[in-house]
């Protein structure tokens, strides 16, 4: 005999299930982050952060990897930001609606979709070998730039699009040229959005591994110039864990890496908040 369950009961059951699925997703996330933090926070102290590794990372600290990470991200951001914002300004304010513009948009979409390991291969063949940069901060940083450029273009475009038309029209009506309008009116209004995008881009770049493995090298020495090889935190973590060098050091490195990424995300949220609260006033 088939029993018919009242539909209100089904509705209640479904609601419970939906609560449960969202709650378990959040529990899983807290478990992952909690597990890393609980195992790794005992390792992190000042000497861990500021000392060089000994015995290929089994002892000592991770200072060169922190320096390496920051150096690569700096090269990537310094090159990606002007180009990305420039491209965004062109696409939002100058680009005519023609085949070339559509091709540019398609190119940005394509670049965003290319798997990071393929960008790494390209960085190796083009920057390391063909241009002769060798395994270096420069080659690794530029490869990272290829990776975050589409993100920078898209987030800057979004930020510029939110600037009300009336503002730029007002400026043009006062006799300002197009570039004066963009520089003095559009960009200043879009800057919070652009900054948030750039900061989130830094967060993405810090954690990236496959792109820099065969472009930045894996040296544990402190670099002296942008032509020196470096090892980044994620690569260091990978080597510590996969070669079984030291579980303890791997947890510590993971905590530092997570800490950097989360701090950057918090900063982005804070900027967004501040901007939004200003807008309401």
């Amino acid at each position, binding site marked *: 005999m088939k029993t018919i369950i009242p539909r209100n009961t*089904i509705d209640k059951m479904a609601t419970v299930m939906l609560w449960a699925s969202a709650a378990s*997703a959040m529990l899983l996330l807290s478990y992952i982050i909690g597990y890393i933090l609980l195992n790794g926070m005992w390792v992190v102290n000042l000497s861990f952060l500021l000392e060089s590794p000994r015995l290929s990372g089994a002892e000592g600290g991770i200072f060169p990897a922190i320096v390496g990470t920051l150096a690569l991200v700096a090269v990537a951001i310094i090159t990606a930001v002007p180009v990305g914002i420039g491209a965004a300004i062109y696409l939002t304010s100058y680009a005519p609606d023609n085949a070339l513009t559509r091709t540019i948009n398609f190119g940005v979409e394509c670049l965003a*979709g290319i798997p990071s390991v393929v960008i790494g291969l390209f960085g190796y063949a083009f920057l390391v070998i063909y241009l002769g940069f060798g395994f270096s901060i420069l080659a690794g940083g530029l490869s990272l730039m290829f990776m975050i450029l589409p993100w920078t273009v898209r987030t800057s475009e979004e930020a510029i699009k939110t600037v009300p038309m009336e503002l730029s029209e007002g400026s043009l009506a006062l006799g300002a040229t197009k570039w004066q309008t963009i520089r003095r009116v559009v960009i200043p209004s879009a800057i919070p959005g652009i900054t948030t995008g750039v900061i989130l881009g830094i967060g993405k770049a810090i954690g990236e591994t496959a792109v820099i493995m065969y472009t930045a090298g894996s040296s544990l020495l402190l670099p002296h110039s942008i032509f020196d090889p470096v090892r980044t935190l994620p690569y260091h973590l990978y080597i510590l864990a996969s070669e079984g060098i030291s579980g303890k050091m791997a947890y510590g490195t993971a905590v530092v890496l997570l800490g950097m990424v989360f701090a950057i995300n918090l900063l982005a949220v804070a900027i967004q908040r501040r901007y939004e609260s200003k807008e309401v006033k």
Partner: protein
Amino acid sequence: MNQRTSERIIEVSLFLAALLAIVIVLLILLFLIKEGAPVLIKFGLRDFVLGMNWNPIAIVGEPSYGIFPMVVGSIYIAIGALILSIPFGVASAVFLIEIAPGWAQSVIRRGIELLVGIPSVVLGFVGLVLLVPLIRHTFGGCGFSILAGSIILAIMALPHIITISADAIANVPTSTREASLALGATRWQTIRHVILPSARSGIVAAVILGMGNSIGETMAVLMVTGNTPILPEPIYNVLDPVRTMTSNIVIEMNYAAPGDHQQALFATGIVLFLMVAILNAISHTIIRSKRVSTR
């Protein structure tokens, strides 16, 4: 310099900045083909993609370059990840838009942001120290497996699936929702028979995009799947180790000598690039056609 010339110079330099994205994409294609095509021509595209035997450093006999087990490995793990993440992801998206009170919404949105921010190598590390031993003790085998790769990739895909599905669900007009409720349908009936069907194409786009991302993912998969370049035995055994195309590139670039071996890795990159590009194109087409049709 008069104002008009300087305006013109600025416009041209902005145009060049915009052009750079295409230039980079073309350079990537050029270098992939330059480095990878010779080996494809030498051994034949069919034998490369469908060849069962990957043995680049042959001690006895000729080396062979067949990446079929890795193509299967990549697709296998990506599909496994989707099977695990879609029910969770869509349910969480429905919850987020239709049911969650304000506080739960902000908790979930913050959680998604955190999850997106976790570097893949950290997730791979968690997989290595938590998931692999768990699978080894629960199901036997070595623990490094298709299952482990799929679970880690599912966790990575989850935030993207939730975000895009939630957008699709939020785009269902309120009037549709209200009409269903006014006819006496319960909230669940409305979700199941009205909202999910209207949001379907957006959700499908999310799934295909997730598939492309999963196939292109490297570090997390590399650390938990064991990386043996052979098909699982039997083929449905999800506890067997497997190697993906991305792992193949990363592992062997370490010691591949310039020549056929290194070129074969670039050729793997070409196949990977094409697969991901096709999936992305399909997904973008669905998203775009949906945008047009809702207008």
